[in-house]
């Protein structure tokens, strides 16, 4: 039995079992935590597409996370106050329907990723890291200074948005939605990874010269990957906003980008379940260490340092050994 699939299955079922257990014993906060893990893992799956498969070290993925969040916040706040979003040239109303919000979030973050990617992918290496960071900062300062939707105060939505046939206010039902979406995203990721696109993208990460010499343009591949990545992270942002019933510019901050990246690296870059395991461990650490000391960031830093220095390939690498995805 290969250890990585076993680990993946354990984690994925565990992520289902814990909230079900919490539901049975009426510990709703544990369900909320599990939901948080699922959503952050989803954001990580998005980043992993660019970072893991494409080798694109983006320190600006908070942009898409934030756009997804604000898509939810803006639509729901207009629905909440019964004011139209746009009256001219066509009347667009707000909405409290999750599926509509998701589509808007994915569309908007995808467009943003397309535009940012088109410019950023002209650079590479450190320059790419920094230009994506710069775009993140632009959105961050814009959101803080933009008074229409709350500026730094953000937007509060009093009631969680609805999904047909479900009561989203019930923690376990909202968890179910997030869990299913995470599962779908993982499935999409696994398909992409072994598709023609995934092969070419991976090859472009390892050796762009080779890919060009066989007549494939890496720029286009990377732009598509970056856009898809933004779409998934944007969807996570919309769910995250719904979990908290709140959005704020913090979602755009570079620390948010950093945290999403930490999930991916902690779990294992380019591994299917890397972001999931990373998010589980991160949230767990946050709660364990946060209880130990006010200065728990010291311990978090130490743990991260140990993982980077001594557990190359992240936690999955530690447990399951070096990646083997060959026929």
């Amino acid at each position, binding site marked *: 039995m290969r250890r990585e699939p076993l680990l993946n299955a354990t984690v994925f079922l565990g992520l289902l079992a814990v909230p079900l257990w919490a539901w049975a014993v009426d510990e709703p906060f544990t369900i909320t935590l599990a939901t948080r893990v699922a959503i952050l893992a989803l954001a990580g799956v998005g980043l992993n597409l660019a970072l893991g498969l494409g080798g694109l070290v983006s320190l600006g993925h908070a942009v898409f996370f934030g756009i997804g969040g604000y898509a939810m916040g803006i639509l729901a706040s207009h629905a909440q106050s019964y004011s139209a979003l746009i009256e001219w040239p066509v009347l667009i109303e707000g909405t409290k329907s999750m599926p509509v919000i998701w589509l808007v979030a994915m569309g908007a973050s995808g467009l943003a990723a397309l535009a940012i990617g088109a410019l950023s992918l002209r650079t590479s290496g450190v320059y790419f890291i920094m230009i994506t960071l710069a775009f993140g900062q632009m959105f961050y*300062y814009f959101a803080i200074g933009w008074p229409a939707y709350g500026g730094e105060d953000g937007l509060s939505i009093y009631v969680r948005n609805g999904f047909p046939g479900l009561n989203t206010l019930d923690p376990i039902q909202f968890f179910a939605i997030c869990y299913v979406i995470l599962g779908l995203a993982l499935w999409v990721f696994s398909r992409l990874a072994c598709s023609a696109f995934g092969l070419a993208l991976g090859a472009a990460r390892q050796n762009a010269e080779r890919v060009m010499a066989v007549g494939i343009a890496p720029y286009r591949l990377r732009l598509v990957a970056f856009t898809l990545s933004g779409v998934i992270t944007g969807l996570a942002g919309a769910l995250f906003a719904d979990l908290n019933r709140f959005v704020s510019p913090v979602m755009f901050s570079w620390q948010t980008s950093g945290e999403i990246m930490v999930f991916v690296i902690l779990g294992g870059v380019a591994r299917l379940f890397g972001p999931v395991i990373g998010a589980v461990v991160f949230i767990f650490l946050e709660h364990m260490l946060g209880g130990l000391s006010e200065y728990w960031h010291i311990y978090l*830093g130490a743990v991260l*340092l140990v993982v980077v220095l001594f557990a190359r390939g992240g936690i999955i690498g530690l447990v399951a050994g070096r990646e083997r995805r060959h026929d």
Partner: protein
Amino acid sequence: MSLILFIEQILNGVQFGVMLFLMAAGLTLIFGVMGLINLAHGSLYMIGAFAAASVAGLTGSFGLALIASLAAAAAAGALIELTVIRRLYDRDHLDQVLATFALILIFSEGTRWAFGSFPLFLEIPPYLSGPVTLPGGIEYPLYRLAIIGVGLLVAAGLFALIARTRIGIQIRAGESDREMIAALGINISALYTTVFALGAALAGLAGALIGAIQSVQVGMGEPVLILAFVVIVIGGIGSIKGALVGALLVGLTDTLGRVLLPAVFSQFMAPQAASSVGASLASMSIYILMAGVLVMRPSGLFGKA
């Protein structure tokens, strides 16, 4: 805006740029020689400021405080180079980013643990405080002129170090070809530790100098760090000249953006809205500048392609 005010604002931009240069020089040196992205550079800046504030509090001497800042930051730099950083040279940027991010967490909370949550006190020494009148009737704080002076001295010193000295030759060799320095029989580990400590000392000096006119507190390093990264990316990573030009560009863009953009918007908007929109755009201006430079020149102004 009067000419005098405009010149004063240009001076402000230059001073801000020079301050950024002190941070950026170390970053770009470390990247150029070792190929390392050091997010913890902001922590070294903070350590310099805290060391200076502590020593100034004990001895009352600003000179000793500056020496302490150099020493403390260099020592902290050498320490992390020996224990952590040197394991990262042959890693990819991703690992470097994460490991040095972890160092930020450790340094920030460690400093808070040692010094508490309240800002520390560090003041301008009496002989440098207050304004002086420049030709043309411009009143300008002496201390800011001193910062410009120190920054330009450091720049000149760095150029001389790299162009003239033995270690400069080694640094240049290291930038162009890492295997070559090994072949030349140079002790690479010692060179790397030295360069890292030098970069750290510059950051510490910047922290101490700036701490006197700003707030010495935990977390003071990260905003400056991001700006310093913007600087070296605009200038081209690894280039000291690029860092200087980039720093001045960023300093001037930021200062003039803050001054001019609200004025521009007030031509056709209500004052409060104009001021607010102008300020928003001003805070985005340097990032727009950076994105623009990179789109035109993907390796910065003086970077190697």
